[in-house]
């Protein structure tokens, strides 16, 4: 922890806002925590081409008298991080363009700010109207509120108001003392990204105690990550088909997801991989028998999946709804620091599996799938290509299933006074966890960043000038997490 350079705020701001302007750099996490009556800020910048991370810090006197210059005024990609700092620590910024509550966290400084009184952007006009949707939506999905300003059927502006899903998960990593409890928490950050978030957690936990993951564990985690990607992408295609009323696609992609998650159930007893990933051990050995089953599952899945996709693609009535709808330009994606498949669909080559790989990915030489139109169809097409890519990786890994480690070694205690960061490319995009241990090796702070934190603004920008009837389609094409954002 002592090795992280501590700068004065001016230099800290200059360093990171200069870094982000360089090609291939982006912010993977920026947050603060209380430190001896002051606020310690930590900023983690990734250099995708040099495969490095630059971590810097600054120490602020709590609730300083001066309003700070914001990172966001220099680069929009910091906007959500600074809104969080403002909400939790009441840090005031002189030039932040959108300093609104982020998620109405229970530990927010101004308790009088309530979620029902969110300060929405408004336009006084007799010609425009507002549409409010949520927090409870028509389908069986998570809650969030969307406020549209429309001209007739056309969306001029969308403001996304989140926080309904806030469970106070980060402080629970500190108050729940045992490793199993913390692992269950990691599994519950976003229940559709269990492999992603739990892998990020166990990476941190193992690195802090110097435990080297056995090949068998890395293998299990990589298989789970790619299966999670395939299952969610397939489910996403089903939901997109449902949103445009293409019943055949909705039913067939929906049923194609079932064998993928049922395989996870067969392997670890849970369709969402809960229970599978554990720091320092593996409860569910991946046997040759499972490997054979997975191999034949993929052989059966591939032709049905490909046939369905190609048929869908050949229908002009379907394509008319998907092409040129919900465009996120490359410039927009760059400016807001988009990550994951949303960024890659808009021409940005940003993928932790190639830029900062660990585990099995380190030997993979992964080439990210990149699309260039940034429309709904690009985000569909990337799912299709990534599913095929994942199948290729899984088949390659299945050729050599690592031997079981017996007995499981006993995981060591975390070392004191360390900072650890973990990056995992989940199915939505880049997941970043940061953990700091105190002088006894217990958590002093734990920070989670789901890719949805970066990407909600991408969705809001992409729907502008689209018809409001296309909103569900655009929303599903990004498929962002509410609980991952709200924490």
């Amino acid at each position, binding site marked *: 922890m002592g090795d992280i350079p501590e700068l004065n705020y001016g230099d800290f701001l200059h360093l990171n806002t200069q870094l982000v302007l360089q090609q291939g750099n982006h912010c993977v996490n920026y947050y603060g925590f209380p430190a001896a009556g002051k606020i310690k800020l930590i900023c983690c910048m990734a250099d995708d081409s040099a495969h490095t991370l630059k971590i810097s810090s600054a120490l602020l006197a709590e609730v300083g008298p001066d309003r700070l210059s914001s990172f966001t005024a220099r680069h929009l990609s910091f906007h959500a991080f600074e809104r969080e700092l403002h909400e939790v620590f009441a840090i005031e910024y002189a030039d932040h363009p959108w300093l609104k509550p982020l998620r109405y966290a229970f*530990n927010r400084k101004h308790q009088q700010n309530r979620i029902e009184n969110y300060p929405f952007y408004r336009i006084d006009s007799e010609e425009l109207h507002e549409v409010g949707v949520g927090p*409870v939506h028509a389908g069986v999905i998570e809650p969030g509120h969307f406020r549209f300003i429309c001209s007739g059927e056309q969306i001029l502006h969308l403001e996304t108001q989140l926080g309904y899903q806030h469970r*106070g998960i980060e402080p629970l990593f500190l108050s729940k003392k045992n490793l199993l409890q913390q692992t269950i928490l990691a599994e519950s950050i976003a229940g559709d990204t269990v492999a992603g978030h739990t892998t990020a957690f166990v990476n941190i936990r193992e690195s802090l105690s110097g435990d080297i993951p056995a090949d068998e564990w890395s293998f299990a985690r990589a298989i789970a990550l790619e299966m999670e990607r395939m299952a969610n992408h397939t489910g996403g295609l089903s939901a997109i088909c449902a949103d445009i009323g293409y019943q055949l696609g909705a039913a067939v992609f929906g049923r194609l997801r079932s064998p993928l998650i049922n395989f996870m159930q067969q392997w670890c007893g849970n369709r969402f991989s809960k229970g599978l990933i554990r720091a320092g051990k593996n409860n569910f050995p991946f046997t040759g028998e499972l490997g054979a089953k997975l191999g034949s599952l993929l052989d059966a899945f591939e032709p049905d999946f490909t046939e369905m996709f190609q048929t869908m693609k050949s229908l002009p009535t379907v394509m008319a709804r998907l092409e040129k709808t919900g465009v996120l330009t490359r410039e927009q994606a760059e400016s807001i620091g988009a990550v994951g498949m949303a960024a890659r669909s808009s021409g940005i080559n940003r993928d932790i599996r190639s830029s900062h790989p660990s585990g099995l990915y380190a030997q993979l030489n992964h080439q990210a799938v990149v699309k260039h139109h940034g429309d709904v169809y690009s985000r569909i097409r990337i799912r299709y290509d990534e599913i095929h890519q994942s199948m290729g990786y899984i088949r390659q890994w299945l050729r050599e299933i690592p031997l079981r480690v017996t007995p499981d070694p006993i995981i060591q205690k975390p070392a004191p006074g360390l900072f650890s960061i973990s990056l995992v490319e989940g199915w939505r995009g880049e997941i970043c966890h940061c953990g700091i241990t105190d002088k006894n090796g217990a958590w002093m702070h734990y920070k989670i960043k789901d890719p949805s934190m970066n990407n909600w603004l991408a969705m809001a920008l992409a729907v502008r000038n689209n018809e409001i009837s296309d909103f569900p389609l655009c929303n599903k094409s990004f498929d962002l997490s509410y609980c991952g954002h709200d924490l």
Partner: protein
Amino acid sequence: MIDDLRILIHQGRQYIGDITAVKLPESFRGRPVISQIPVNGPELVELCPTGAISNEPFTIDLGKCVFCGECAFARPDKIRFTQDYRMATNVRDGLLVKEGEDRPIQVNAAGIRKEITRFFRGSLKLRQVCAGGDNSCETELNACSNVNFDMGRFGIEFVASPRHADGIVITGPVSENMADPLQLTYDAIPDPKIIILAGSEAISGGIFAGSPALNRSFLDKYRIDLFVPGNPVHPLTFINGVLALIGKGK
């Protein structure tokens, strides 16, 4: 058209004919069975991440259990998770599994309100409210309506508006920020109406129990008609539980 038919034929038969008799894989963790072998009780109580295990008599509360299975890994001679997915009940205490007992968890027919079987047996429309759920229970509730589980064949459906609903299905530990929207949604449902809690988080708070970001007061105000354990709930657990509640179960 020909293409569509070809695709349909390629999918084969996907629906599950008898949802009461599916054989789930051995690794699936359903209703546990606890032997009477003496163990160091406090050690297992301490091991459980959500306080679902209590000692003397040795009991697992499926309303708190997150089905991680760690207790069964630690003492396979004491605890064994069976593949019995029929775990829903209308009695909270019905979720307590005691040592030495190996009997199915059931809906207590005598405890069901008369209006439920009278009005909802033929058709039940449900409004789902996610209140801090992690999207795994929600995804499984969606799966209930897919071509595999096809809950619609029993006249049970999720609907968009609470005005069209006969009841509410709550997932998640009930975050403070969802407390009001949950109440508003419930109030908008016409009487008579039912409340179903789906998943350990909804039933007890699960791993989030005690978090200062929750507000579970809604659940203290009303009678809960069905508890469906799971992390997340399995579609088969949910559908069988609801069928038993409306008097259509086997």
